[in-house]
């Protein structure tokens, strides 16, 4: 998706318009840092990744053809920069593979479903119940955010990149697939696994003290 104004911004950057650069840096910065943090550990390395990304963006600005949106293009550059740095730190897995399937079904243990001999195979043994506390209620909001931030931080890098772009930065599925160089289907599998783990963390947090996860 090409955003209105991308072409004008790119033109301004090519002309050397510093104000245009300052604005686009301001706009993209939090997002770029959030994504970079999925690949490298230290704050310093995150800063390096973001700076290297802008250098690469400027060097490549004449090659930007507007086939994707500017932010999609910038993020795909960031992912490359971050990955090559992570490779140097020797902690990375092939991004295009989905990785091993997680245990259970979207965070629910196999014991939550009836086996082939049950009355209704594949249906709940004990059905989950709605959360009684609203995690978005103001009294809980700060605490809940910390739980979610921690759960997101603990995700494998590919799941973390996808959930960050989709659910934190509000990108569409096709945009995320394009920026990360994966298929839309795989993008959705990674998103589902990521959401399942965050849901599980929220569930544990919201039902703590009730004796049983919902």
């Amino acid at each position: 998706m090409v955003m209105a104004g991308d072409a004008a911004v790119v033109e301004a950057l090519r002309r050397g318009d510093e104000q245009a650069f300052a604005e686009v840096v301001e706009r993209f910065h939090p997002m770029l840092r959030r994504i970079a943090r999925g690949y490298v550990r230290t704050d310093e390395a995150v800063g390096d990744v973001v700076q290297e990304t802008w250098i690469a963006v400027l060097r490549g600005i004449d090659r930007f053809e507007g086939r994707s949106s500017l932010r999609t293009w910038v993020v795909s550059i960031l992912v490359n920069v971050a990955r090559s740095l992570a490779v140097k730190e020797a902690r990375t897995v092939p991004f295009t593979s989905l990785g091993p399937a997680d245990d259970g079904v979207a965070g629910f243990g196999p014991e939550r479903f009836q086996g082939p001999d049950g009355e209704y195979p594949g249906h709940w043994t004990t059905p989950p119940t709605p959360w009684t506390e609203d995690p978005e209620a103001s009294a809980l909001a700060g605490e809940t955010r910390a739980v979610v931030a921690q759960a997101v931080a603990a995700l494998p890098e590919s799941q973390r990149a996808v959930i960050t772009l989709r659910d934190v930065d509000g990108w569409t599925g096709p945009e995320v697939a394009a920026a990360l160089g994966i298929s839309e289907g795989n993008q959705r599998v990674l998103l589902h696994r990521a959401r399942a783990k965050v849901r599980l963390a929220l569930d544990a947090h919201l039902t703590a003290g009730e004796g049983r996860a919902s």
Partner: protein
Amino acid sequence: MTQDVPEDDDLTCTQVVMLITDYLDDALPTTERALLDEHLADCDGCSAVLEQFRTTVAVTGTLAQDDVDRLDDTTREELLGVFRRWSADRPPA
């Protein structure tokens, strides 16, 4: 709510739970979506899970409000320096 006896092409709860993100993305073929809607109408457990996923997405969205990643003055100056050096080295159009 009583649960109807499942028919052959009905989805199981296991299947529904695996399809929730596809469902929320509106990425299911119409027939499969209809089966899922029918299942949800009858199954309180899966309906609760769907709501929990929606809430999870909403709460994850609030992470954008955290300001740990906002651009600070030092970094802004560094990046503007990058731009000035790039601009100075650039051959005139």
